[in-house]
């Protein structure tokens, strides 16, 4: 019975993140448009876009190899698996032990590896430009993320996200290291999701784009999968920050099915708050020059390192 319950939670979790991901993006876009005093498209527009792209025929460049066609599926799969392992509404995920926070970070790294390769496959200058810059950004964002994971793991005594959330739920008090980790994690989340000020998700100016340049050659179902992966990744990061820093409302492990509606409600609330904050953050900043990004991400790396150092010095900080 417990197994069925866990399986149910895991299954719901996988479906919920997939189903809600385009909505999160839609809400962010809508809010941004309203803040710019535009009307903006409906929050459901990302679903329509995805449905349209999935139905269209895929146009593949003549020089593209099998990697170009396989990559979207791999990117989607790695991102989805990672997203399915972050507790959203309940901590008792059946498979949460199969990958800890370090492995989740690395899974996103796998997705990026294939995305960057796919960008270089057709052999156009823009693809190479996007891949090159993406790898530069990730070469700072990933170590920053690992150091932040270290901070969290040292506070909670575990890299297991379910356990971390459980510890946070019991309350660990206000900690300097956690404050540093929160700021750092937000910076990393902005960079990893190609948002302003690191990258502009809605740009049409070729030289300012990173993520969009990599996927320039994609169309149809391949593009839909990549867009969906990007949306999943955004949801993943908001869920991650929510489950670690505002774990309230998470159904604890073995709490039974009655806690689930409450957990789901709390989760949707957190997503809405996260999306609003992101929209506010994005409209209040301008995009940086590419070579300012290392300073921005270097700050996250230093915050993570500082947090970890503090925890090495004293477990109470």
């Amino acid at each position, binding site marked *: 019975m417990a197994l069925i319950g866990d399986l149910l939670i895991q299954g719901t979790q996988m479906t919920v993140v997939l189903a809600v991901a385009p909505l999160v993006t839609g809400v962010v876009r809508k809010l941004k448009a309203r803040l710019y005093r535009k009307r903006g498209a409906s929050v459901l527009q990302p679903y329509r876009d995805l449905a349209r792209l*999935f*139905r269209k025929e895929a146009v593949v*460049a003549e020089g593209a190899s099998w990697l170009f066609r396989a990559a979207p599926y791999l990117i989607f799969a790695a991102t989805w*698996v990672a997203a*399915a392992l972050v507790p959203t509404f309940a901590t008792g995920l059946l498979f949460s032990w199969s990958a800890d926070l*370090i492995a989740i970070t690395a899974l996103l790294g796998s997705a990026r590896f294939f995305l960057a390769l796919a960008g270089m496959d057709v052999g156009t200058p823009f693809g190479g430009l996007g891949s090159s810059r993406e790898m530069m950004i990730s070469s700072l964002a990933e170590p920053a993320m690992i*150091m932040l994971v270290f901070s969290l793991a040292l506070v909670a005594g*575990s*890299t297991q996200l379910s356990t971390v959330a459980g510890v946070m739920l019991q309350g660990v008090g206000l900690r300097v290291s956690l404050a540093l980790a929160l700021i750092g994690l937000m910076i990393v989340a902005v960079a990893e999701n190609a948002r302003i000020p690191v990258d502009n998700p809605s740009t049409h100016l070729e030289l300012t784009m990173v993520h969009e340049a990599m996927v320039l050659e994609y169309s149809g179902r391949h593009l839909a999968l990549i867009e969906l992966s990007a949306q999943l990744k955004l949801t993943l990061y908001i869920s991650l920050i929510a489950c670690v820093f505002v774990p309230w409302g998470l159904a604890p492990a073995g709490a039974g099915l009655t806690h689930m509606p409450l957990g789901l409600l709390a989760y949707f609330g957190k997503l809405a708050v996260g999306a609003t904050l992101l929209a506010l953050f994005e409209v209040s900043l301008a995009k940086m020059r590419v070579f300012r990004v290392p300073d921005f991400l270097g700050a996250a790396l230093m915050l993570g390192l500082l947090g970890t150092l503090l925890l090495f010095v004293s477990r109470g900080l």
Partner: protein
Amino acid sequence: MADGATAAAAALGSTPTGPLSGLLFLIVAFAAIALAAPRLARRPGGSALVYGASFIAATLGLLSALAGLVCAPETLVLPLGLPWIGAHFRLDALSALFALVVNLGGAAASLYAIGYGRHEHAPERVLPFFPAFLGAMNLVLVAADAYSFLFGWELMSLASWALVIAHDKSAENLKAGFVYIVMATFGTLMLMLAFALLAGPSGAYAFADMERAPHGALVTALVLGLALVGAGSKAGLVPLHVWLPLAHPAAPSHVSALMSGVMTKVAIYGFIRIVFELAGPPDWWWGIPVLAAGGITATLGVLQAMLQADMKRVLAFSTIENIGIIFVGLGLALAFKGNGLEAAGALALTAGLFHVLNHALFKNLLFFGAGAVLNATGERSLEQLGGLIHRMPTTAAVMLVGAAAISALPPLNGFASEWLTFQAILLSPELAPWGLKLLVPAVGALLALAAALAAACFVRLYGIAFLGRPRTGAAAEAREVDRWSRGTMIGLATLCVLAGILPGPVIDALQQVVSPLMGARMPVQGDVAWLSIIPVGESRSSYNGLLVFVFILISAGLAAVLIHRFASRALRRAPAWDCGFPLNDPRTQYSASSFAQPIRRVFASGLFRAREDVTMPPPGDLSPARIRLSGDDPAWRLIYAPLTTMVDALSARANVLPHLTIRQYLGIVFSALILLLLVLAIWP
């Protein structure tokens, strides 16, 4: 000769019936192949014969090593070498593990070379030294006294040196050979001093005696330093790495694979043997220099790999990075053991040894792939390649596995060992000394940086060489390599995947090595449900490569099936979009140096003095704009350049010595004598 060995052993009263005698027999076999090789080299098919024989010998060595991993340690003394010591041989789990790495690498390289070696234009310069190199590495691993160890070590250096300068036509290779032999000699000298200190004034050169004898704190500190410098120079620790990126790529590709994937591991074996075993229990601070060297080596190695255009040099620098990662694991193990945390030390040592195995697998694979590309195109420079995925599908597929594995991507093997290293770092707040408390997080950050940069480096290598459009005619005309080479690469790629999705059995096997060295072992992973690995405790951390692998396959497959079934499966080929201005010239693609440009600017402008000089023609002038990249290795600038200047100055001063009068010579001899007598009188 094997009979002689048996007879001698019987005379000494020991019974050489186990895997040790298998390995000793193998060394003799390698020597025999090496001696027969010059004659065979001239015959048609002779090279296949030599490599085939080497393959069989190495496979037997592999089996002996596997047996040695489970059997009890064996010892054997033969009346060879120095008469008052004899030649001691011992096969314990540590030797067996490294013998496994050496012979696995050796078997793979031999099999690969059956096909690859056909293209060798001077086989007589390669064939004799290849089996000698393999035999020498095995000799180092089974040696149990300082003399045999150093004999094997020097033989290994000399055989590989001969292979480095096998293609002696280019000045670059000759320079590589020169730098290599100088550094190798220096390393051997350091090890010799370390052994001399351990043996003490009584001259107890057998390892068993060294281990039993008590050593003072000063002696063991010196031994640690000498072992770090001596073994580190062979392994490629910064700043002793300068020979490695010159020498490894200069050799034929299957030898490059052996040097990078296997010989550096023999150096690590030497370090472990001396520091973890012979020098006795570690002090609390021993981890500090090892950790610092490892962290710096990992980051600097991969940064320089990122800046290279030569494919084999990229791989050589990436070897330096991986050696750094291994040394971080070893340093953590020393730190834990020196502070009484044996269980955590077992985790750290397991992580390091697991990475030894993994690096041997994927670095061999990657060098074989680079060799295949070199054979198919005649090019080593990334700037001349491109689009090989269309022309060499098998090589491209296995190289993708290798590139993903070395970039520490789950679910492959590089990630499993890196994950274990991170878990060991997370245990280190338990360490009491302040130096370690401050150093370990910094090393963790360096390691994370190195992992991320490695991914960037291998996206660049793979993306430029195998993806995109061919940049030259040679790349456009490339042909897939022969069956032997492809088979070997597929085998290694399979092993990379297997070690990644089933890390539990590997960790359990490594405990045979870890528990005698650390006095503790990791929890048994074989009992954990679903083949997960749980290094410390279930609530602390766990990872399941198999499940992650299966999940990714299922999700990707499910997505593909659903989309093709219910959405659209139509596909049309069209010219590339490229924002509406597709440029036909393949030179408009991103090149290797343009791909590295952002990282060069961010990381390398200070340390490596990387500069970009752009010369723009004046308006109206139609000549092309030019960009010139420059940069250097800080080790050369800060250490070796002053050193060579100093040596030059000293030798210029010493130039007067051959031209003295007989009286002055006698005066020098006399004062030297007085000085030595004084020293002797003052010596306590």
